[in-house]
Structures are given as C-alpha cells and as structure tokens.
C-alpha cells in the first residue's frame, strides 16, 4: 500500500466488483478480527466475500497491482492465527464458496468449493455408503479450504491419513490472479508434486478455489473401546503396545484426569472419574475382523493393567463414548476463562516422559493443564488454562506453551502436528529450523508469491526476527550427530545471544 489515493482507487474497484459483499464498517470488520487463536487480534482494512472464481481472480489482480496484502479465511477456526487479518490488507473470505459441485461414486471422489465445511462432505455422501476420512474435531465448522491450508488431521487420521493423503486435485488462484490446477483425478501429474507442497502452506502460496477429495467406503463394522488406567504412564505405554502388536486402529485418543473430569461434568457419558488416563480406541473393518481385533486388544489392555474396559458396538453407544472426547475442548474451556491449545508431535515412545515433564512445567508456571490428544499419532494437545484478565497470566501461559514446544523439538518431534505455525509458533520456527532452512522456505514462498502479498508475516520467521528472538538454531558438530546440519559459515558472524 503506497498512498491514500491508491487505497481509494482500489476500494472503488473492489466495490464495483463485489457491491454489498464488501465490508468496510467497523462493527462488521471486527467480526473477522481473530481466528480460533483469540489472543491475537487485528481488524482488517476491509473484508471481501467473492462468489465466483472470476471475482477471486479479479480481487487478486487488483490487490497485486496495488501491493495490498490478502489474507484468506475459511471458517476462522484455525488455532494458530493463520487467518488473523492484516491491518492494511484485504481479508478474503471464502464463505460463499459453499457448494458441493460433483460426487463421483465410481471413482470415489467429490469436487467441492473451498468454503464447504468438512462435515458437509461426509453428510452429502453418507447415503451412498461413503465418507471423507480426515475429521478434525472442528468439523462442523471448519472448511475444506482451511483443511488444505493447514493439512488438518482428526481422530481417524491414524489409519486414513491427513488432508494431504485424501485430496486428489486443487484449483488455485495465484497472487497475480491466474487460475491453475495441481494434482489430477488420476494418479500421476507432470512436474513437481505441487499438490503436496501446497498442503499445510497456510494461505501463503495461493488461494484454494476448488478441492477434489478422495472418498472412502464406510467400514462395515465399527467398535469403540474405552479403557481406563491408574496412571498416565500405563495409558501411554498401552498406546505403544497396541500399535507395536500390529493393530492399526482407526483412531486412538487419550485423555488425562483433568480432561476426563471436565468432559464428564459437561456431557455426562459415564467416563470413570477415578481414572488418571483414558484411552479411546476405534476399530473398524469386517464383522469378523473387528471381533478379532477386540479380542486382541482386550489381551493387551489386561496385560497393561487397565482398570476398566468398555466395548461399544452399536451406533448409539459408540457415539456416547466419543461424545466426551469430541466435547473435550469446550468442556475444558469451562474450567477457566481462557485456554491455550498446544499442538506438538513427538515420537510415541516419548509420550509418558513428555507428559510427566508437562506436569512439572504446570507446577513451575502455576497454571493447570489438561491433556486430550491424538495419542496414536503422538500428537499432543495440552490445553493450558489461564485467565487473560489476571495480570501476567497470558504471558505465563505463553511461556508454558513455549516450554512445551521446545520439549517437543528436544525429543525429536515438531512444534505443530496439525494446527500450523501461523503467528503463534513463529518464534519456535527459529528453534526447529536452521537459518538456511528458513531461507529455503522463503525461497519457496517467493517462487509462488514474489511480491509477498499473501498472508505476509506468517508461518516462516525472517532471520532478523529469529536473531531478535535469540534462538537461532544451531546444529552441533558432534560425531554422534545424525543430523545433516547446516553450513553455518554464512552466519558465523551473527551473534547468538
């Protein structure tokens, strides 16, 4: 954005294009000020709600010309501030792109607009015996465009994969307004695998305007097994035992005492209140297969000292067992005025140790934490409870969160398994990646968005920001290192505080 005159001219063009689907008044702009990470707010300059791909192209052309930032937004359920607006930019809402364009029952695929909610896809094909597998807990609200941008997961991703494993083709609009396609409805596509690269790119590389997803047949039979344990340790150990014995559950979730208590108080589904750890394991397949797996699982649970085991095979009972898990975030939300949801992923074998350390952090920072997470994938979701109105609590929550993320990196994991970096974890990127790696990410960004108008300032920190943060990543040169490491020479003159 250069001058006020440019701004006025852009505003005029956008008004011509979008009419009353352009929002400039304060009250309605404020609706978009944050995504699910409500601690980070920013009122956008304006909001546009295009209805056609041609409009999106035209908006991008105009903004590109005027060098005005554009932030795409689906449902705004993101938890890392990815859709947090830019104060001088256009917030581009895809909310009006909410149609399912085509369902192909022979090739098991559906072509949908990006603003369609995740659950709407499965709802639309259920009567055909099909479903769309990735199922984030936010699935009633979050959009498929947002899912692609975050490479979202869900409880069923252990068996069926993440968004990137279940999308065949994307249509995108480039920052310059050009429409293009990546992936294919077959299996090959020429050139580099841009489809993979675009998943999880957090609205930094292009605007997704159409998504073709893979559908799967609904399994013949499903069982949900609930197992309670006297210690978090035993529950965590059981997760490893299940997977190492060749069972691949459709989902394998874990909750700790605080999460169990909160969920039970909220939805009352009969979770054992005396348990320290709870596992919810979903098995699916043919009738015989599911029976066989239940038996195998029971043996493992017994051996690992489960104090209570419940098996649900009929739909109502299964729903009941899942309800507590699915409602866990809002349930925990009732325990304190605010909560801060973390998303690190670690090797499963580190679960027990990491959970123990998180408890220690909780004592150090004087804030409670509830754990409810995708245990089978090693994807943690510690929910840090705090009160934003109490002086210093936000800062303590953030410091607690940072400790958890650093711990995840330390044990060989990552700072984010499915929620993305956004603005929230941008400093931790400096720890997880070397300066060269960050520079390569900036190179990828430039390859797609030379003028850097898409979601500027998110996902990948600048090197100067890392220097300021004081956590430039440095690989050691020890002989035990399996790391490939970096050529640190280029930065050897940089001070590392």
């Amino acid at each position, binding site marked *: 954005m250069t001058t006020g005159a440019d701004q006025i001219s852009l505003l005029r063009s956008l008004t011509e294009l979008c009419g009353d689907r352009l929002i400039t008044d304060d009250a309605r702009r404020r609706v978009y000020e944050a995504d699910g990470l409500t601690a980070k707010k920013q009122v956008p300059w304006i909001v546009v709600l295009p209805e056609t791909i041609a409009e999106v192209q035209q908006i991008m052309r105009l903004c590109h010309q005027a060098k005005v930032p554009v932030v795409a937004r689906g449902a705004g359920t993101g938890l890392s501030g990815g859709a947090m607006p830019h104060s001088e930019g256009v917030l581009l809402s895809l909310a009006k792109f909410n149609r399912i364009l085509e369902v192909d029952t022979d090739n098991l695929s559906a072509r949908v607009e990006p603003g369609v909610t995740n659950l709407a896809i499965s709802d639309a094909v259920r009567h055909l015996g099909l479903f769309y597998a990735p199922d984030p807990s936010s699935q009633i609200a979050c959009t498929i465009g947002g899912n692609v941008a975050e490479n979202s997961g869900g409880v069923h991703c252990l068996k069926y994969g993440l968004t990137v494993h279940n999308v065949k083709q994307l249509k995108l609009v480039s920052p310059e307004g050009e429409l293009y396609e990546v992936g294919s409805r077959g299996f090959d596509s020429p050139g580099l695998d841009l489809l993979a690269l675009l998943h999880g790119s957090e609205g930094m590389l292009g605007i997704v305007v159409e998504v073709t997803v893979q559908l799967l047949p609904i399994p013949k039979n499903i069982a949900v097994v609930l197992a309670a344990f006297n210690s978090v340790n035993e529950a965590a150990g059981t997760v490893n035992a299940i997977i190492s014995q060749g069972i691949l559950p459709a989902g394998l979730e874990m909750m700790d005492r605080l999460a169990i208590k909160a969920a039970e108080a909220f939805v009352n589904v009969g979770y054992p209140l005396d348990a320290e750890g709870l596992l919810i394991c979903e098995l699916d397949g043919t009738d015989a297969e599911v029976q066989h797996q239940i038996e195998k699982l029971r043996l493992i649970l017994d051996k690992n000292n489960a104090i209570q085991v419940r098996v649900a095979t009929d739909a109502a009972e299964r729903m009941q067992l899942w309800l507590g898990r699915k409602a866990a975030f809002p349930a925990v939300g009732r325990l304190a005025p605010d909560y801060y949801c973390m998303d690190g992923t670690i090797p499963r074998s580190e679960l027990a140790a990491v959970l123990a350390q998180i408890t220690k952090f909780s004592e150090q920072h004087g804030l409670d934490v509830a754990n409810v997470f995708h245990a089978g994938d090693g994807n943690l979701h510690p929910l840090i409870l705090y009160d934003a109105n109490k002086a210093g609590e936000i800062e303590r929550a953030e410091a607690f969160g940072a400790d958890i993320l650093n711990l995840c990196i330390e044990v060989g994991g990552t700072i984010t398994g499915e929620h993305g970096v956004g603005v929230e974890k941008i400093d931790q990127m400096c720890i997880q990646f070397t300066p060269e790696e960050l520079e390569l990410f900036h190179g990828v960004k430039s390859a797609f968005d030379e003028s850097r108008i898409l979601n500027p300032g998110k996902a990948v920190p600048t090197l100067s920001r890392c220097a300021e943060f004081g956590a430039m990543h440095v690989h050691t040169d020890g002989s035990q290192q*399996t790391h490939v490491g970096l050529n640190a020479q280029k930065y050897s003159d940089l001070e590392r505080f």
Partner: protein
Amino acid sequence: MVTEIKALSARIAEAYHHAKPLQIEGGGSKSFLGNPVQSDLCESIDCKGYAGIIDYRKDELMIRVKAGTKLAEVESLLAENGQRLPFEPPQFAGAATIGGVVAAGLSGPARPYLGSVRDYVLGVAFIDGRGIAYEMGGQVMKNVAGYDVSRMLVGSLGEMGLICDVSLKVLPADEVSATYAWLTSSVDAIADFQRLQKEGLPLSGSAWVEGQAFIRLGGSRLTIAHAAGLVAGEKLDEAEGVQFWQDLKNQQLPVFEGEGALWRVSVEPGSDALLDTAQVIEWGGGVRWLKNPAMNPRLASDPHTVTLFRPDQNEIDSPTSTPYQHLSGAVLVLNQNLKRTFDPGAILNPGRLLATVPEY
C-alpha cells in the same frame, strides 16, 4: 555434520561455483526414466557409499535410512520384523536404492488402496544445488511446521537436491494375501475393481493383463477368509500370486518384453480412454500401459497424464516424443521458479524432469 555429507556438500558447492553440471546416480535401476541428461557434459555424483539404517523404530512404525541403502535390504529388514513399505516400490532389473526410490517416486500395485511413496515420506535430509544441507520434515507422523518440502522432493528425479537420508512411515505386514484371477474384458475388469473397492474389500492390488483380471486381497486371516467369498475368479497358489505382482511392478511380464516404446497413461480410474489399445491396466483402472501403440497416446483428446516411460531403444537418439508432457501457464512458471530456488545454477540432473527443450 556427518563426514560423508560434508564431502558431498563440498562437491556440489564446488560444481555450483564452476557451473559444472552433476548427474546423480543411485543403483541405476531406473536410468531409463525421464529426459536424458547430457552425460558427456556431467560429472557423476552418488551416495551409494552413504548406506545403512540410521534408525529403525519398529514400535513407532518409522525407519530412517541413508539414501544409498539398497531397497532390498530395507525390505528384508522390515519383513523380518513383520512390517513393510506399503507403497511397494518397483526394483526393475537393477539394484534400486532408497534414494532412487524417493527421487523417482514410483509406487507399486497397492498404490490406489494404500497410498504412494510420498504418502509415507515423513522427512528427507538433502543437499541443494549450492551445496547447502537441509533436514526437512522429521521422524514423527504429523508435522506441519514449514512447507512440506520433503514430500515435494518425491519424484523430483534429483533436480531439486541430492537426497541424503529419508524417514519413512512403515506398516505392519499383511497376515495373509491372496490373488484371484479371471478372464474378462478391460471394461468389465475396471467395473469389477471399482465395485469391489466400494464394497470395502481389503484390496491391495488390481490389474488387467491381456484379457485377464487379477486382484490381490491383503489383511488378517479372518478378513481375507470373509472377503474371498465375495470374489469371483480363481485363487492363484500363493507363490504364483506373489510372483505375478512382483513381475507386474518390475515390468518383467512377457507383455513388457521386446522392442518398442512403453507408454504410461494416468487417467481417472473409470475413464474409457485407450481401453482398446492398452495391454496392461493397473491401479483399479487408473494407469494404462501401452506397448508400441500405433498412435502417440498424447494425441488422445482427454487431458491425461501421459509419460513415455521407456523410449524405443532404436530411437533412443531421436526419441519421437519427450518423456514428460509439456507444462504450461502458472504450473510451468512455478516448476521453474522452484528449480531456480533449489538449484540456481541448474547443475543437478539438469532437465531430467523439467526439460527446457520444447516437445517435438
């Protein structure tokens, strides 16, 4: 940094400074693939010496392997532990390495049901065209920090970097697998494959070869026993079944033999394109192989992905067509921009995937 990686980095950095192109070599099993690299202009570089298992965590379903490790070695280690690479990469006639498997990005018979190489790549350590080493992704199952560069490297045929090591997700091996065969037309075979998939059968392979349909079921004993009741066709004896899928993925069936070009056409599985000329159909209908077709399949009207997989040996010096179809518009620009980012001197396998020469 590991000594070998340091040496490889230095080699590439030097080549970059002297603008000397490098040809990356693995086991050589897929040397026919892609555009010919002008090898007389190139020195070759390989990581065959950088071989071995870095980390195998059976309980985590994860293996991290140096790029020069033989595919066969990895597969047998996994088999000993009741696990496997679900994407079943082909080995062809040579001694495929893991680096080559990832760089070529080719998957085997289970691809439509269990996913492709890139679906199982968790992380890649590599050196770019300036000699800078990186670690992208990691060893955990879910990771969205930074752009997913490791998955993009899959199938990049060495143009984006020298792959040093790879972390892969592995799965438990099937308790049993069973192969069924019946005589049928290609149209009916594809309809059968789609019906069986929709019925939720545990398919792990489907193919049609010159008038005969084949499917493979994989899973627990119980599942297969149940599923078998739903399949028409004759059950092959176990060794024969195993051999068939091996030969199919390694292109050692008689139909692949002899002279002439071999084309690979990727379509939506139910498409009726080229059904009368394809000799082999795989992946539920999604891939069609044409040996020596009368007409260049690129001239077919539908927008398929067509690859000249193996050029005619007699025309190797003047191939009638380029291996990969032309990119255009934004996609072409993005491919070129990314190449420039990862390999600014265009010294790594120049043109093997992203040829700059125009088609014909």
